């Protein structure tokens, strides 16, 4: 079966023109959406349903630069292409050590009442971590994505590993940000379903 890049007639590259991708998505939707195949024989209707589900899945995976990287990694690992089941990559040990104190403070916050001082500290840490998350995202969708696109075939595994590690860092930081948010009674980062503006 063709991969999601091929669905849109694209090479396997992380740099994608969002506007062109949307145009192509609309064209393919017009071609395959079941609405336009109502009068067709059952076999053709089934095909249209399947194709349009695939076009939708492909667009969902590729329209956002971050989910695009996640898809690339899944593709590389030969995993089933589906939502939500990504095995959580392990966070770098250095990061774990760094977060140790915050985790302890969080644990205390969960069991007891937050005093104003702790609340302020945790709030500040959450802000700092959010910035770090944004930084990780910028790294992934910026230089690291460009590096993978530019890499010679032999260097691609290395470039992919760098992406994978950055994704793991981001995922871990986000969990902590969410936990802090919960402890502080603030809104959590969106965990799924969101997509960015294009």
């Amino acid at each position, binding site marked *: 079966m063709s991969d999601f890049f091929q669905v849109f007639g694209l090479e396997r590259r992380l740099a994608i023109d969002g506007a062109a991708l949307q145009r192509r998505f609309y064209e393919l*939707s017009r071609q395959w959406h079941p609405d336009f195949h109502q009068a067709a024989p059952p076999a053709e209707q089934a095909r249209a349903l399947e194709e349009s589900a695939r076009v939708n899945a492909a667009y969902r995976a590729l329209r956002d630069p971050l989910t695009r990287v996640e898809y690339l990694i899944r593709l590389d690992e030969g995993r089933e292409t589906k939502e939500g089941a990504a095995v959580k990559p392990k966070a770098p040990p250095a990061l774990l050590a760094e977060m140790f104190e915050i985790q302890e403070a969080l644990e205390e916050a969960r069991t007891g009442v937050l005093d104003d001082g702790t609340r302020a500290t945790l709030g500040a840490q959450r802000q700092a971590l959010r910035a770090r998350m944004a930084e990780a995202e910028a790294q992934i969708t910026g230089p690291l994505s460009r590096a993978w696109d530019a890499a010679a075939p032999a260097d691609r595994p290395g470039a992919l590993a760098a992406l994978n590690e950055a994704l793991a860092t981001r995922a871990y930081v986000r969990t902590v940000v969410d936990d802090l948010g919960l402890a502080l009674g603030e809104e959590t980062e969106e965990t799924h379903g969101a997509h960015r503006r294009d």
Partner: protein
Amino acid sequence: MARIVGIDLGTTNSLVAYVDDRTGLPVVIPDREGRRLLPSVVGFTPDGILVGEAARRQLARRPTDTVYSVKRLMGRGWEDVKEELPYFPFRVLPAEGTVKLTVGGREVTPPEVSAIILRALKERAETHFGEPIERAVVTVPAYFNDSQRQATKDAGRIAGLDVVRIVNEPTAASLAYGLHRLGQGVIAVYDLGGGTFDISILRVKDGIFEVLATNGDTHLGGDDLDRALMLWLLQDVQTRHQAELARDGVDLARDNEAMQELRLAAEAAKIRLSSEERTTLTLPFAGFTYHRVITRAEVEALIEPLVGRTLGPCRQALADAGLGPADIDQVVLVGGSTRVPLVKRRVQELFGQTPHSQLNPDEVVALGAAVQAQILAGGITDMLLLDVTPLSLGIETLGGIVSILIARNTTIPTSAREMFTTSVDGQTVVDLHVVQGERELAKDCRSLARFELRGIDPMPAGMPKIEVTFLIDANGILQVQAQEQRTGKAASIEVKPTYGLGEADVERMIEDSFTYAEADVETRMLIEARNEADTVLTHVGRALRQGANLVGDTERGAIEAAVAALRQAREGHDRDAIRERTTDLNHATERLAEAMMDAALKGALGTRRADEVMDLGASRAGES
């Protein structure tokens, strides 16, 4: 291709529309009397079934046999609805995977009641076109789950309609706006109807209507606003007329007729307060008349928490779309409840712009359904709706944790594949529990169905590989297929829906539906004449108890004679005779009614300002 109509099956009102081939524009089909809205009310009487306006008029007269807001019960189980059941005057009983209503001496399910409404709309369309109509697009709230959508499809089948597409109400509205070139760019559709709330964010570009995110609450609408006001009124009546109620030993909360009167009065007052700052309520009860002025501010304080509940879903939908309020080009209001000024204010505050409603909020969903019907019929080829599934779909895994297969706001149709295997040697059956919702634990989500994959060859644990495909079609309804990977043969699946009707039930209901025929015109007019007679008899009975001293013996004697004559006529089948005796009784009581109104006015004058008395006069004129 044969004609397909668009139907808005609403909580309060339903409509049918089609796209006019000459103009290319959608139009609502009126009934013979020119009425466009069909009240979603069904009355069960010994003589037959009443639908729409005729049924609505008997709401207070036959509260236990007149079903309204049945949409709130569609696709739901006893546990989902039991808290609000005390507010319904008709009896609702638990049943397997659904609820049953005991009305008019028989048991019916919510899809059967909805089918009666759909059949009335089908007939309305058939009369209009002079040809049979067998296919329809039917709208549902965007936030309806799988069972609620399935129940709507079932209702169509029972009514003899092939529901070729279930469309989400806010997206249907956007199609109607789009056709009129009124909605372009990124638009937010805020849809507060009679029983449900939806918010949908769409990008409209080059004829493509791409839903970016949707959210809502399928148990929040005008009904809830009415209920808040009704409960407040009940308390106020009980406080002000404590003495009379104690004297007569009446518990209003247990009096179905009185509660219906209060509900209808609350609804009418709410509607008047959308255009006026204050309104007067005059409610005759057995033994006393409740009379007071109520202001918009008072009602707003009552409904503020309910209106506030719509804002959370709006923010979530924006977040899911990756947008902020400032990114929204236009905000469109849909649904009758968006006429409430407080709703408009809150929406305006949230989005920082004036929302608009150029197209009639009561009709725009049906118009959009007609547009979608025309697309499916091949009559419109330049517009395409890309909708999303409102809720995440997952399966229950070890420890009751949900593993999400399809995330909410995924464009439909969409599919997900998952591998399953056995955990015990020789196992031949694998169970899957599919749920819908956003919570981590399966028990907190909506159970959709349990699937049994059968006929697996006995093998050591973990050897069989069964690939299961979960597909959400363009209706937002789940289809499941399974295949054993080694043999390539389709695995047999037994589906046990947690909620809803089984195939055999639906078949039986299609058969039964012919015995639930709507009363014919003659019978309907007879039932209406009797209902009208009952209403007048009740009012006169009350008036005689309260104001007998206001008229002389001769006059009282004449009234009593007219009452007896009407009672007798009512038992017969001569509709004209019932009508005539009703008119006679109305004439006989004219003086009594005037005398009582004067007395009420005089009583009111003592404590009220002159402008309020003017209001009383106006509401009196409006009621006659």
